[in-house]
């Protein structure tokens, strides 16, 4: 963890997600599918600025969030993730025209699928941001971390 002095004061007081106990029953696993054009660039900028992020989030680079289907999300949940989120371009700014809009609807579909079998819909979410909007990326990641940490671990059969 870099000190505030080393980051040149860009981050006044780094928040220490890594050492925070996530919950009473262990740390959660969150899978984030990040679009290469926007969210991954924002994640890169976040890393370059040395902004600490919750260690629960594992990132997966995808060319466009439109590539992520219900099966990707459901497989992640079935294989060990407690939450899945997608981060893509702002509405109307998808580099593949409408990939993020498709992703938004697919996430809505998965949420309804989860609800129909009694699993919380908040476990699957989608956020949109521009490539330059690193603070928004940080906010989305933190929000996802907070949401999933508040929920019990996802039980599997």
């Amino acid at each position, binding site marked *: 963890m870099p000190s505030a002095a080393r980051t040149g004061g860009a981050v006044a007081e780094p928040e220490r997600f890594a050492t925070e106990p996530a919950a009473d029953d262990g740390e959660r696993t969150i899978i984030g599918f990040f679009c290469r054009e926007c969210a991954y660039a924002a994640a890169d900028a976040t890393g370059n600025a040395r902004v600490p992020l919750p260690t629960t989030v594992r990132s997966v680079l995808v060319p466009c969030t439109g590539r992520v289907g219900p*099966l990707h999300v459901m497989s992640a949940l*079935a294989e060990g993730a407690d939450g899945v989120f997608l981060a893509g371009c702002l509405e109307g700014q998808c580099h593949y025209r409408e990939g993020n809009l498709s992703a938004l609807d697919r996430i809505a579909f998965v949420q309804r*699928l989860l609800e*129909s*079998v*009694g*699993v919380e819909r908040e476990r699957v979410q989608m956020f949109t941001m521009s490539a330059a909007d690193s603070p928004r990326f940080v906010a989305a990641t933190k929000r996802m971390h907070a949401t999933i940490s508040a929920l019990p671990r996802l039980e599997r*059969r």
Partner: protein
Amino acid sequence: MPLTARGREILGSLPGVAPTVTTDGIGCEIVRREELCIGCGRCVKVCPSAAIAESSRFDPAQLYDAPAGTTRGALGAALRRIARHEPDGSFEVPERVRTFRTIEFDRTRCLGCGACTRACPTGAVTARPVNAGEIGGFAGADRVPCAVPA
């Protein structure tokens, strides 16, 4: 109406059709196997009598019946692992999700032409010859000849 000699010849070349049947009995009965359906909607597009329609709702229980090795089967297996109870009924599908929809088949409007059988990429729709009157209320004379291999 009895068949002509040529008619009997054509019918005799079709598998599963007895050469003694009349024109009243040469439409096909469409048999759908919902567990193989991937919801692509090709049968909906080719149906000449609008007997097949895409519903805006989807029942997750369909995923449990899908065969392993298909996307729906894999999705069903994943859903089964994390499910806390059995699926509680169908829900509305968002607009841009095209493939997870229920295909509704209206037997009374079916002409028995078999276009859906040829369009189906997974073999979920099959056709078999039947005698007139077995399909709900449809007059045999209105049915077009079945040219689909059984």
